[in-house]
């Protein structure tokens, strides 16, 4: 009898392990991973989800088992056994989650640093707070930190810190309710195009209120904050079209603040860039209309008209207003 019990406990634990690992790998909950960072993310996500699923099975399993096995039978007015505690069990169920959670913290930290990339940032001040940051080897600082320390300069393409020639820098400007992408002084677009395989860096700034840049397929998100610069880096890896979503409540049409990110092949990207160059030199007005600096001086209607003309459609949400 005792031996049978032990065997069934072991079998059940084995099954729970198997089910958790299987679910972690086959949950299918995330959209396609279109960037290098997304691949790292998915590994972490699936692992934690698997662990969580294991705990879920154990606790829900015990609850359901209890309902069936321990429900009061008719006419039974007795109490259960007077068990107040069991120190060894309690130590076990405190220790196991502690170890797991700390392991999750370390794994998360690894993935986090890998997703953010590491940079040498020793001794830079953090935006306005005049605090020195730790040495880069021990604690890599976030993009946001360096970016926000760069309070007066808008970084233009090609003027990145030394050694980042292989990074494509794009200035992003967010405003109610549109994204503007500045590739060079002339080229400003409403759609984000990036070449596959090349590291991209977005230097982001908001004109009015908080916004947040999010591409679900890249698994990255960063608030865009007026008065300070924040940034994101990622490496596109799957050619295709993906939504750019504003994830921070920014006003009435927050839900309409969407555009598209296209991951092009290098050739397509070059062609597209050339086209944009031509459009820009033929029709300087189009650029002016989409420049953040000028936008602030325009009325909302004027600006929206300009933006919609340039985006070539998506008039739908603009007309939803009163």
């Amino acid at each position, binding site marked *: 009898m005792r031996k049978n019990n032990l065997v069934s406990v072991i079998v059940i634990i084995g099954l729970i392990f198997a089910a958790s690992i299987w679910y972690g790998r086959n949950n299918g909950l995330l959209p396609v991973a279109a960037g290098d960072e997304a691949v790292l993310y998915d590994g972490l996500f699936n692992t934690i989800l698997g662990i969580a699923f294991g705990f879920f099975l154990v*606790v829900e399993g015990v*609850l359901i088992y209890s309902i069936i096995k321990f429900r009061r039978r008719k006419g039974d007015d007795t109490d259960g056994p007077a068990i107040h505690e069991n120190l060894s069990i309690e130590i076990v169920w405190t220790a196991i989650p502690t170890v797991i959670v700390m392991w999750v913290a370390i794994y998360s930290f690894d993935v986090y640093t890998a997703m953010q990339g590491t940079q040498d940032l020793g001794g830079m001040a953090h935006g306005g707070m005049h605090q020195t940051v730790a040495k880069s080897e021990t604690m890599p600082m976030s993009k946001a930190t360096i970016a926000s320390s760069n309070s007066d300069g808008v970084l233009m393409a090609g003027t990145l810190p030394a050694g980042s020639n292989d990074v494509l820098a794009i200035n992003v400007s967010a405003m109610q309710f549109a994204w503007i992408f500045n590739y060079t002084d002339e080229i400003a677009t409403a759609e984000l195009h990036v070449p596959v395989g090349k590291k991209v860096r977005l230097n982001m700034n908001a004109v009015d209120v908080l916004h947040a840049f999010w591409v679900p397929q890249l698994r990255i998100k960063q608030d865009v904050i007026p008065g300070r610069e924040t940034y994101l880096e990622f490496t596109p890896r799957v050619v295709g079209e993906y939504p750019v979503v504003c994830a921070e409540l920014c006003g009435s049409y927050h*839900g309409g603040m969407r555009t598209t990110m296209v991951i092009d092949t290098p050739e397509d990207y070059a062609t597209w860039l050339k086209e944009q160059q031509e459009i820009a030199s033929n029709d300087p007005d189009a650029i002016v209309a989409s420049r953040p600096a000028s936008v602030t001086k325009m009325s909302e209607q004027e600006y929206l008209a300009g933006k919609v003309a340039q985006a070539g459609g998506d008039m739908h949400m603009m007309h939803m207003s009163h």
Partner: protein
Amino acid sequence: MTQTLIPTQSSGAMGAEPQKTLWWEFFTFSVDHKIIGIQYLVTSFVFYLVGGLLASIVRAELATPDSDLVDPAFYNSLFTMHGTVMIFLWIVPAVTGGFGNYLIPLMIGARDMAFPRLNAIAFWLTIPAGMLLMSSFFFGPASTGWTAYPPLSILTNEHVGQVIWIGSILLVGTSSILAAVNFIVTIWSMRMPGMDLFSMPLFCWAMMATSVLALLATPVLAGAMVLLGFDLLIGTNFFNPTGGGDPVVYQHLFWFYSHPAVYVMVLPVFGIISEVLPPHSRKPIFGYKAIAYSSMMICFLGLFVWAHHMFTSGTPDWLRVFFMVVTLLVSVPTGIKVFSWVATLWGGKLRLESPLLFAMGFISTFLIGGLSGVMLGSTPIDIHVHDTYFVVAHFHYVLFGGSVFGIYAGLYHWFPKMTGRMLNEFWGKVHFVLTFIGMHLTFGPMHILGLQGMPRRVAQYDPQFAPINVICTIGAFVLAISTVPFVINAVYSWFKGEQAPDNPWNALTMEWTTSSPPIPHNWVGEPVLLTGPYDYGEEYKEARKEAAIAASQALT
């Protein structure tokens, strides 16, 4: 449908005759903690219905991808008011003001709270706060989310509504600070002779932890609200970047309060669950000390996790890592509680009536919210799902599957004590089944929405998400309907329900030793502590019978 009674405690010996409160007394500035508790519960439940109505409109709008039911600006007001009402006028007042006031003096054998008049003032602050907030529907209600992040909340078109919103939060905040002081003093200094800290019911531990949190954190929120009000009204620039202010500082102040606020909403419910499980499963609570200490651990750790709401706000890395680690650590004391509850059930004689059903419903749904919470605690995971429907799913599993289920468990458990009447068990079960199904239909699929790419706080969304949103909306309507059997049951039973005995569940905590409903000042003579709060189990029964007989002989 109630279980047969073998009165193990001689409540009659205490000599109390049940005494009904006259209806109009509930509308007065009463200083009786029991009347105040019921005032809190009824008022907050009315606001729950208001908040639920707002949520239903939100869900109706989201039944289709286009913004076609309400004006998009008004949509923002709807979810803002929904969140504000649910948090500040429903959960917080119900679990602290309602259950806390009603139960704490009864559980520790006191006549009333330490400061009865302060208690009444705290309650009567919530009425103008609620009215004020509702009045903003005439001026254009606040529309910047319950978080009211600047600069949007400074530049908002609903200027008046935002100011009213700030005023209302300041009022409920004041109320909450007053109540917290009262609970701490009462629990600390008014326990009956013979009741030390470790023989208090666990609900008292939970209220202690809650009150410490509320006392430490609420003033910071009040500060943030005052500064935001200045920015809004007289054009200061604390948080407005165009004048050199820092909007991220607001987020720190706001979350320094609002993360602990989550524990304010859920710790008392943990306490309720620890009270409901033992009498209905006929076993002692498993691991009393571990549960008590874990409340204090959660209280302490809960003060240092706030920036996990700001992983995408441009906070420095060391900060993100620090808050990630502390956040993940909170799951340990929370896990201890869940395991202890499950172990309490194990081997018991489960009386599967409404109180236990809701309590087990709490464990099973809160668990999911806790597990998704661990996922969100991991910084890189959170960065993808922050401000998406995954988060909406997470916090509704915690606040609906957690707090609301726990409140219902508590209501079914203590309704007989509060009113002297039993609730109808059949309709209680119907209520449970509908709520359980509605809850998972509404919030379960939202996890997928968020992971797949649907942001929160949007009136229009990508059509690819339409089918899942339809499921959520159907679930919300099931939830709306689920309240009907409860409301009818509660109102009907209060007046016409089956008469409740003093101790219908054969429970051991002190509140069951007086009449149902209790008399003013709770006991006729000095209450006597006969058993520990959780001395259930066959082994205790004999001893208890003897003690009860001895006590009744001593009294007569």
